[in-house]
């Protein structure tokens, strides 16, 4: 018997063809990252039993919930799978307390006992004084916590979280993310989190899975993803420059332009350059950098006391420089600038 979730699923809905293999151990959190339309929500709905599989198998703690085609199928209400929906989906006609008690009541617990248990759970999430409030009266952060309490109240063996923080504003998001991490740690079952925010994924999950167009393009720890992204989406997510090209010795040809690298390689490769390793100059730099070219500044995006500067051209590159450098170099969109990258700063690995 395998504890936790083991799922191998295939299903198509409209333009989306989902084909995913996933395993989540009890007590672990796996985050599914992906752009809109990648099939993240559909994946969760399939695991919850709200969408049927075309082919595949869903197993939770050794029990087969679904096997398709033709195998057993457990309806959502008979799966020990709870879901925190995007925008919460709290029942608008019930108080926070009755929302949390709903699952217990549906599973046959008496009204009084269910409400007592629900009150305890709200109390644990610091919401004791909001028990009588209707969802419409709750703040975004409170509603998120009530939704979490409602899902955790049934003590599911698998907890699904669909963009749990997406509806929150930036300040609430930070504190709620921290709390969420704490409360998730207290849940003994497997957890699957869907998000498009890498910070949420890194803060809440041990293992990251990147879904694009219904398929897993990469998985691993956040360090692994950041170090060796395998798609433009992942590179964008972790904020590094990624090039796909053909290597020949110490040269990598990326769509007509070349990059000189320090390691020798051959064949189809990916080359990654951290924005901090990209140096910008007003005049052509002398000395050691092997990769030097001129390009137009396309975009400047402030990030704290630093700025990310996108330089166009055949080798589009994002450089991260200090705010002071932006002023010194006179960087404005449209200005020409020299880009320099040391060969040793380019990491090359097979595509």
């Amino acid at each position: 018997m395998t504890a936790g979730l083991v799922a191998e699923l295939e299903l198509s809905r409209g333009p989306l063809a989902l084909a995913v293999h996933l395993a989540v151990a009890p007590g672990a959190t796996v985050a599914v990252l992906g752009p809109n339309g990648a099939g993240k929500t559909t994946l969760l709905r399939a695991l919850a039993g709200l969408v049927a599989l075309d082919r595949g198998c869903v197993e939770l703690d050794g029990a087969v919930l679904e096997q398709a085609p033709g195998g057993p199928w457990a309806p959502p209400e008979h799966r020990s799978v709870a879901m925190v929906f995007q925008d919460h989906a709290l029942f608008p006609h019930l108080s926070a307390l009755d929302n949390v008690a709903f699952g217990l009541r549906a599973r046959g617990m008496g009204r009084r006992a269910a409400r007592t248990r629900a009150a305890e759970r709200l109390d644990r999430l610091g919401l004791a004084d909001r028990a009588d409030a209707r969802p419409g009266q709750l703040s975004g952060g409170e509603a998120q916590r009530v939704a979490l309490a409602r899902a955790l109240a049934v003590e599911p063996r698998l907890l699904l979280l669909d963009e749990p923080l997406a509806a929150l504003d930036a300040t609430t998001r930070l504190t709620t993310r921290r709390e969420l991490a704490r409360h998730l740690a207290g849940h003994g079952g497997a957890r699957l989190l869907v998000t498009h925010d890498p910070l949420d994924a890194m803060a809440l999950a041990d293992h990251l899975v990147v879904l694009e167009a219904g398929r897993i393009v990469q998985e691993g720890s956040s360090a692994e993803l950041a170090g060796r992204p395998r798609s433009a989406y992942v590179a964008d997510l972790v904020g590094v420059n990624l090039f796909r090209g053909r290597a020949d010795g110490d040269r990598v040809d990326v769509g007509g332009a070349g990059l000189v690298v320090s390691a020798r390689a051959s064949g189809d490769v990916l080359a990654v350059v951290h924005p901090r390793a990209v140096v910008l100059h007003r005049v052509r730099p002398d000395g050691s950098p092997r990769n030097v070219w001129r390009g137009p500044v396309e975009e400047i995006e402030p990030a704290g006391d630093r700025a990310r500067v996108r330089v166009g051209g055949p080798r589009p590159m994002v450089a991260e420089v200090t705010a002071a450098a932006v002023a010194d170099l006179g960087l404005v969109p449209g200005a020409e600038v020299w880009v320099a990258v040391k060969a040793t700063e380019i990491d090359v690995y097979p595509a």
Partner: protein
Amino acid sequence: MSHPERRRRASRLALVAGALAASFLALPLVGLLWRTPWSGLGHSLGQPGVAGALRLSLVTSLSATAVAVALGVPLAWVLARADLPGRRVIRALALVPLVLPPVVGGVALLLALGRRGLVGQWLDQWLGIRLPFTTAGAVVAQAFVALPFVVLPAEGAFGSADRRFEDAARTLGAGGWTVFRRVTLPLAWPALAAGAVLAWARALGEFGATITFAGSAPGRTTTVPVEVYLGLESGRFEDAVVLSLVLVAVSVTVLLVRRDSWLGPLRA
């Protein structure tokens, strides 16, 4: 003639037409109020015929509303959610009482449920149930005309309901019936209540189908509208006016209640 001038003349014309329409709507009501025997109101309401008709109408209209809700809500759910082939035909059928002249509805009910009717003969023979010219028959006639008023808003509410709430309920362990009872129904409540109120108003005012199918037996099938008609026919003019006033009051109240906040959509 310049443009602004033409527009001004057009708007003046519309104003006149509008005023005409408004008076056309208001005048009958004013006429009714004008001829209401205000001082004898209490006396008229105490007349056995009048009081009996009021009592009977209250009972039959509320029963008819209950029947319409009991039949209409499940039908609305099926129309909104079930994936069955004859759905469009059934939806059209549910609308028939809206457009059918009530007296024709009464004739049709007679032919279907009368003592020699399609189904009525079996009801009579096997179960001993006779609907025509009984209070139950009046309820049937009223429920028939009131049904669309329940079905239409309920179908709209079930069809446009946010399914995520039902999905959430299912993942929390609620089976189909629990989901319907504890989530779908409460969320559709404003539409259902509005439908029930309209259905009740329609049942209360029902005349054509009732008098055709249930007749005008005093105390048994003489509802308020039937009594108004009988009053006018037999020269009990004041009784007719007083009962008409009651129906007007109910209609106006329903209109006001419909606008009230308890029917407004629940906000998430």
